[in-house]
């Protein structure tokens, strides 16, 4: 279980407080107005932000002492998820053990309709295409906790539905604990087991 | 990259300086391909059945500086290329031993009787001009300084000819030297770091006169067949530069070193040096290309090495302040 207990994070002069619990395999949507600190929460869990107090625990063990690299977390940033100077396929393989089979990646690319893009450089992709590549990698990495920061923001309605459904299926299938930051209620319905208002 | 590296190390290891019977510190151009070094080495090794190694440093004063730095741990048996202006400073390092040679073969005009330093060539400082451009050259230092002809000379802080001119002006003008320097500065094109910068600028046509040696025209005649570069004889007389060799106190083979000094003033060596170092032989009766007989033969003026050593820094300051105006 992912437990966030009285977590306090400084943001300038203000201090943000968080409390939440997510069961293993639970898909949780996080909603709230802009600036309420949704992304901050994800970055704190992933280990990018110093914590002022409280605790983050996974399976009863505190994560606070662990570095970014040691935490069981896969984070999809709001943007800048791809290295611009290497091709898409190379980008997809990053963050995965070398021995991991590429088959799931190919399948996911097929489902999300990006197979033709794999040999291109990210600069040749549209915003929506880039988001799908990042999404595939974030969900297929062998990390039990997946944090998605507005992963569907730039997708058209059709693709958005496709991506949302694929995300849910893949997360459930991989028994991931997933936190999804989104502004759209429909994303909540399609992906999440429950929603949390910040 | 890696193969280059191995090539480099291989070359480095195979050409180390071997322990020679006689090690000579000299200046670089003396041992360059066109300098006298290689020929002298071959000639001496033929008669002594020994191995002689030259180690080149940038110029004459660098030989002295190297001796100063190394002190007793220097490798040299001989130093070759200090001039009379640096002689006393070299002597005060205490690293030179008397040569014990009779120097009666030397030209009388050198008036040489030092017990430690042996002259191997000499020259008079002189201003060189292009006779195609100038038909009536100035005939005295005073005329040159009072003229408006463009002049290039060398910085006395960094080059021997520069020091030569400093002594020359001092010898001719005495207490009025500062004033003379200021007048000269009015038509000086530039003051260069070393001899060649000045001389090459002159050859490129940058000035009417350049400070060099009375023997410079010989090079142009012998090597290039050009006879229009000439040295202007000055009525006050010219300052000489005498290049010297000496045996170090720390030499492990002073006997052989002495033989080399003797060789250096022999007719054989004296025939080689003028046509490669472009200076004058220190003994009479050397067989040389005819142009050497046509060079100007000035009256010698100047100061004793002791006076130079004593007053150099004072003269330098005088020059620096006057020429910087």
């Amino acid at each position: 279980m992912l437990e966030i207990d009285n977590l306090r994070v400084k943001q300038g002069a203000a201090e943000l407080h968080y409390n939440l619990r997510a069961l293993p395999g639970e898909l949780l949507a996080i909603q709230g107005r802009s600036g309420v600190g949704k992304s901050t929460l994800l970055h704190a869990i992933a280990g990018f932000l110093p914590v002022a107090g409280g605790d983050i625990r996974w399976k009863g063990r505190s994560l606070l002492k662990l570095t970014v690299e040691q935490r069981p977390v896969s984070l999809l940033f709001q943007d800048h998820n791809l290295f611009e100077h290497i091709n898409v396929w190379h980008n997809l393989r990053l963050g995965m053990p070398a021995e991991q089979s590429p088959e799931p990646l190919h399948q996911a690319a097929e489902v999300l309709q990006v197979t033709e893009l794999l040999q291109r450089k990210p600069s040749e992709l549209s915003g929506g295409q880039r988001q799908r590549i990042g999404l595939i990698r974030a969900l297929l990495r062998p990390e039990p906790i997946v944090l998605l920061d507005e992963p569907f923001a730039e997708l058209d309605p059709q693709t958005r539905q496709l991506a949302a459904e694929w995300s849910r299926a893949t997360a459930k299938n991989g028994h991931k604990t997933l936190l999804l930051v989104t502004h759209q209620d429909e994303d909540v319905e399609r992906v999440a087991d429950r929603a949390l208002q910040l | 990259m890696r193969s280059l590296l191995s090539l480099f190390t291989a070359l480095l290891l195979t050409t180390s300086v071997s322990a020679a019977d006689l090690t000579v510190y000299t200046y670089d151009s003396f041992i360059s391909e066109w300098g006298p070094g290689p020929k002298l080495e071959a000639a001496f090794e033929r008669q002594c059945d020994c191995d002689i190694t030259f180690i080149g440093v940038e110029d004459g004063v660098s030989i002295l500086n190297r001796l100063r730095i190394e002190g007793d741990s220097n490798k040299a048996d001989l130093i070759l290329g200090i001039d009379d202006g640096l002689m006393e400073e070299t002597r005060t390092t205490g690293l030179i031993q008397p040569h014990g040679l009779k120097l009666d073969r030397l030209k009388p005009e050198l008036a040489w009787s030092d017990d430690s330093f042996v002259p191997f060539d000499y020259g008079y400082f002189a201003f060189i001009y292009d006779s195609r451009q100038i038909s009536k050259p100035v005939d005295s230092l005073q005329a040159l300084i009072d003229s408006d002809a463009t002049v290039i000379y060398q910085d006395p802080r960094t080059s021997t000819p520069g020091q030569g001119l400093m002594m020359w002006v001092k010898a001719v003008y005495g207490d009025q030297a500062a004033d003379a320097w200021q007048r000269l500065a009015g038509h000086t094109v530039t003051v260069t770091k070393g001899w060649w910068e000045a001389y090459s600028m002159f050859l490129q046509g940058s000035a009417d006169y350049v400070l060099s040696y009375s023997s410079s025209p010989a090079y142009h005649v012998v090597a290039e067949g050009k006879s229009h570069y000439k040295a202007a004889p000055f009525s006050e007389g010219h300052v000489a530069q005498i290049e010297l060799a000496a045996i170090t106190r720390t030499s492990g083979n002073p006997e052989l070193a002495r033989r080399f000094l003797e060789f250096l003033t022999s007719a054989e060596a004296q025939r080689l040096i003028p046509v490669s170092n472009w200076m004058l032989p220190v003994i009479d009766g050397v067989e040389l290309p005819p142009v050497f007989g046509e060079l100007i033969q000035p009256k010698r003026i100047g100061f004793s090495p002791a006076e130079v050593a004593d007053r150099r820094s004072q003269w330098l300051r005088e020059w620096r302040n006057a020429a910087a105006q």
Partner: protein
Amino acid sequence: MQRAGIAALLFSVLVTVLAFQGLIGFGHGGADWSLLSDRYYQSVLLFSLKQASLSALLSLLLAWPLARALYYRPQLPARRGFLSLCVLAFVMPTLVLITGLVALLGRNGLLSPLLGEQWNLYGLNGILIAHVYLNLPFAVRVMLQQLQHIPDSSWQLAAQLKLSRWQRLRLIEWPTLKPAVLVLFGFVFVLCFNSFAVVLALGGGPRATTLEVAIYQALKYDFNIPEALTLAWSQLLIAGSLFLLLSRWGRSHWLSVDTLQRQWIPQPNQPMKLIHAMVYAAGWLLLLLPIVALLPGVLEVDMARFGWSALLRPTLVSLVVGLLAAGGAMLLAYLMLTPVRQAHLKRQRKRALLLEWLSTHALVAPAMVVSVGLYILLLRQIDLDRWGMLFVVLLNMLMVVPFAVQQLRPRLLQYDAQYHRLCRALKLSGRQRLRLEWPFLRPAFIASFALILVLAIGDLAIFAIFGNEQWTTLPWLIYSYAGSYRIAEASLASLLLLLLCALIVWAFERIRLDA
């Protein structure tokens, strides 16, 4: 990596400290501070400052329109060639440049008749011309690169808002250039402040002396170590603090993220196009003339009798020395930047600044003191006649490290700004990170390698002290030719050296663009 970086930094600092120590130890005492009140010292200091400020100012002012022309008119003919020529001019061996300038502007120069009776190359004129020639092309490249960081969106927005030309200049161009311009000014200032060969050759006497030249003169005949030390400390203090100050003010320009190719540049109107074309043509003329002026001198050589084989070995030695020095310098620079990057990531600004300063300190440390001090120290410990070439390589390496650091740093910091979080989020291993970084860094790496390679090949000062005649390099050969009346051969060898440099610049530029 981090530790190796600190070790690399310490090593380079240690060499400088040892060199000073060598000089202090031999001089039996420190600097002679009474010199500070000497009139001559003050005039040297003032002149150093004056010529360096003027050189830097002129270089930047003249580079600006040229950079704009190149930016707004990417379709100018032979633009790529011009940019290569800029690199060549920046690294041109001063020996060659001086010959070219004298042939062009000296008393009998090709252009001198146009300049009137009063013209004299020697003095401040010559120094400024040579410094501008060396540094303007560098400034052009930096400014152009900076302008190219302006995103399309800014220009599109400006067009939408119908901003006037003046507004665009003030709101878009200047803010992009400003941080770079400050650092650039500092960089060029320091290069000119420490200038040696140019000032000695074109200065025209004691009127035009820089601190570096004065150090040389103090050490040469007088062997006056206390005076040399005073001059050296002054130079280190002034150049060093200025450099520190300017790199503090002008920063963060590399943080712009490069994503999509830039296509959308506002089209200048017809008269402006003409002005750009004329500026561009003037740029070509400026950079080519001193090179062309070398040719007549070369024609005097008797080509048939010239010993071409004499050039082969020195050329090879120069190349090997250059490659070793440049290769080592790239490695050192990369390692030194590791702690710098760490400090930036941790937002430790002071630490970053200090480390950056240390990594480029060889730029402000008086080269003459470093080489002479080390010579004094080593001569008594090591057989320099045998191992001197190692120190030729080592010192050349340390001398060019700052240039490599300068070029690699913005690229690496940009990489970190853009990708460091991503690398961590993806939990990439050290090896994976290096492999990802390499393709990103490669163009900057190749460009700076070529630059410092040519700089190292052109070295004369270090070889003069540590080298020996068995290992004559091409610049030293030129010097030897000239030193024995063979001026025409010297011009020919100079031209060959220049060709070699041009070939290197050209080849690496191709590799960089094709990669």
